């Protein structure tokens, strides 16, 4: 009993392996929200398309934030849109992840000097992976997804943070 107790106390074997399993499941089933605002949206489509095929990694597109785990912010976020992005993010259920795709979502990109463009989506929602490119090619998005998967696999869900 003591050993079991210990194993719960200090990231023991049981929790670690359960954690590992859950994380593996999560990483391989990152359903993404169909949320494309601008140019990157077309590359997002192409990534879901036959050549790159995002679904190989178990990522299915979802139209509803409630069922999505991953928000791919693809494109420029304007100030008018920013509050909507926040709402969408709030509607997603934990655990949720955000990939900021392309320069516009990263920092406002080439529209940074404009009066109506948000300087990066990280002003509204937390971002896990930043992906440069304008727009990034589909393979770049895949690499960002793999990066995120690696991040998810290292997470501690049951164990103490």
């Amino acid at each position: 009993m003591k050993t079991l107790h210990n194993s719960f106390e200090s990231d023991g074997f049981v929790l670690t392996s359960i954690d590992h399993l859950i994380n593996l499941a999560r990483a391989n089933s990152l359903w993404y929200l169909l949320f494309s605002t601008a140019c990157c949206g077309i590359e997002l489509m192409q990534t879901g398309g036959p050549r790159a095929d995002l679904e190989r990694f178990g990522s299915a597109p979802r139209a509803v934030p409630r069922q999505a785990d991953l928000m791919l912010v693809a494109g420029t976020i304007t100030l008018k849109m920013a509050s909507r992005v926040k709402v969408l993010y709030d509607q997603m259920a934990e655990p949720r992840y955000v990939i900021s795709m392309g320069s516009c979502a990263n920092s406002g990109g080439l529209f940074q000097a404009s009066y109506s463009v948000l300087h990066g989506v990280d002003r509204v929602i937390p971002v896990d992976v930043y992906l440069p490119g304008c727009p990034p090619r589909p393979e770049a998005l895949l690499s960002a997804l793999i990066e995120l998967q690696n991040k998810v696999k290292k997470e501690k869900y049951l164990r103490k943070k």
Partner: protein
Amino acid sequence: MNTIGIYELLKEKTNVVASFQEVEGPTPSIYVRSDFLLEAMRFLKEDEELKFEILMNQTAFHETEDSKLFWHLYFDAPKDQDESHSHEELRLFWHLYSYTHYHRVVIESSIPIGNPVIDSVTSIWKGADWLERETYDLLGIQFEGHPDLRRIMMPEDWEGYPLRKDYVNPTAYQSIDNTPSEITRSFQPKGK
């Protein structure tokens, strides 16, 4: 029909106050005084020889003194009361096209920035509706007689008219901070 012909027809058949603008650029235009706009436009659309069924484009811009091209040509342009603003005005352009005769014309007009009111042409072309809303939104020109004049691009609670030359970018909107980041500032050329 070319612009000069249209201009002569306009002068001949109506009593619109207008002038023909020939500049070194590629496009000549007809300047119509703002209070005669509706009359001129209706004529241009309904005249059998002209038949401009299409309003291709409607736009405007804020003209400060230094950007003024040929203001001396406006022989009877409305004089602003305030001397200090005398050369600052909003210039409007209408680009018309005819699917019957395959010709086009540019109509221009100007209004003082202190009192930006002009007649709406929505009663002539329905397509002018959104174009005028956009012009209103971005430049603050009031179109009299427009059925539904409200902002179209910017949110309703937006302040100012972005395309005016003296517009300053806001640093925040609805509690969202939008000041340039540290990185951005470090990339700006010195002296800015």
